[in-house]
């Protein structure tokens, strides 16, 4: 059920909430929903009257609707991650206000700063020209360096430590596999024996993590903004968790994000990517772990597509991108099997 209402209703609720937060009347202009994101809803919200802001300030509002893919949502993990990374070498928008109380805006939400720049699309055809060489290299260097910086953050004394739940280098992979196994049990509308086979393989081959790090969970082209060749912000912290840093390497290097090229996330030659990451992070990347997490990432992607298909089937929403996503389960599982085959 949609408890958020239309955009003018939402604008009114936002104005009331922000006025309470800042202790002054604010005016909210026409809000605009972005087509990006397949789970949380993302809006641009022009607000006038915020203390310290001259004129109108654009805020980003992220809403986790009760009909969304991984509902019920909480803004907590994203906010904890963003607060834990303030002052680090990871560029990200500043988190302002958030709440999980659906009485306020109809769903859990997070307001954050609108960072400058544009997203680089990961999905392009093989015959489309690649990125300009100098621009690509500049982005690739930052893409690796920011990831290493994220994985180096000492999180134990930061807000995100509340998400640790007893995770250790030894159990990080197994905890992760079991999480996605549960998601598949929740969302699959029919048996997927190859997914079951993949889960068995993943459980039997869990690597030990070099250390437990903050893992973005969806680190790839499309989830950062760039301006004039400079990465201005890492976005979409919805899947953030603590785990093996190799997980982000596996996800970023999925073939789905290569855009028909042989470059990781359309940016980096694989050998160079892993070598530079090793140098920046201070441990040698384990290619066995990368392949393991590529296989797990493909299972995770298949689970996401299963969720999309089920949510649409149950009439939780009519977003027509969801059944289109749901048609990609086979592609993910087939690729997962190939990856495991190569890793065995």
């Amino acid at each position: 059920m949609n408890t958020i209402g239309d955009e003018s209703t939402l604008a009114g609720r936002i104005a009331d909430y922000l006025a309470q937060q800042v202790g002054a009347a604010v005016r909210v202009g026409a809000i605009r929903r972005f087509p990006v994101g397949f789970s949380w809803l993302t809006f641009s919200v022009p607000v006038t009257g915020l203390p310290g802001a001259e004129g109108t300030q654009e805020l980003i509002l992220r809403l986790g609707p009760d009909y969304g893919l991984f509902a019920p949502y909480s803004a907590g993990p994203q906010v904890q991650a963003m607060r834990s990374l303030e002052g680090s070498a990871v560029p990200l928008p500043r988190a302002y206000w958030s709440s999980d109380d659906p009485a306020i805006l109809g769903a859990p939400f997070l307001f954050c700063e609108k960072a400058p720049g544009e997203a680089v699309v990961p999905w392009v055809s093989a015959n489309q020209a690649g990125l300009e060489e100098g621009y690509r290299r500049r982005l690739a260097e930052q893409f690796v360096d920011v990831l290493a910086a994220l994985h180096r953050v000492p999180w134990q004394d930061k807000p995100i430590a509340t998400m640790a739940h007893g995770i250790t280098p030894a159990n990080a992979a197994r905890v992760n596999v079991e999480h996605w196994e549960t998601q598949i049990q929740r969302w699959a509308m029919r048996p997927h024996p190859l997914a079951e086979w993949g889960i068995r393989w993943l459980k039997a081959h869990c690597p030990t993590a070099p250390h437990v790090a903050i893992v973005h969970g969806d680190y790839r082209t499309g989830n950062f903004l760039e301006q004039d060749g400079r990465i201005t912000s890492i976005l979409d912290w919805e899947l953030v968790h603590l785990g093996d840093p190799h997980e982000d390497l596996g996800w970023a290097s999925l073939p789905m994000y290569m855009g028909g090229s042989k470059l990781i996330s359309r940016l980096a030659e694989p050998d160079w990517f892993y070598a530079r990451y090793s140098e920046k992070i201070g441990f040698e990347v384990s290619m066995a772990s990368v392949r393991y997490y590529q296989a797990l990432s493909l299972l995770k992607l298949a689970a996401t597509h299963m969720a999309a298909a089920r949510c649409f089937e149950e009439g939780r929403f009519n977003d027509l991108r969801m059944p289109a996503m749901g048609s990609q389960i086979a592609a993910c599982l087939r690729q997962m099997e190939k990856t495991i085959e190569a890793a065995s």
Partner: protein
Amino acid sequence: MNNSFARLIDGMCATLRGEVLSRLDDEFARGQVFGVINLLNTFKVRADWSTNFLLAQVDAQRQAFAAIDALLQQRGTTAAPALPAGEVPRPVTPAELAALRDDGNRAFGDLLAWLEAQRETLAPALVADVEQLARACMRTELDLELKYASRPMFAEMSSGTETQAKP
């Protein structure tokens, strides 16, 4: 309906692209239209007209032919042309086939669980051979899924803009 299913899909996609997207500014709405185009292209390779109304039409014909044949025989006419006769064969419905496939996949899942439980007692070569056969079939199922799928349009759906050659 006198047009072919596939041609209608092509026409709908062309209209959405040429007549709707060209007049639509909102990015999210454009993403939805690309979602529709993506699904229509999937229907084109997976679907066709329902057989129910064709079955009803053929049933009606067969009943009429049977009645005509009975009438001609009753009146002693033997030189009439041969008419189609007999029960119309009932095709298996897609829902029945999907249930059969799902039963099969459930059986593969049970088989994998059994193999794992018996790994200590069964000969390793036997376990490997059974698993290979099962996986080969699972792969075939996925390959068929992929063969009957349209090109995903994630770029268009998440940006609201045309990014590559039209399918």
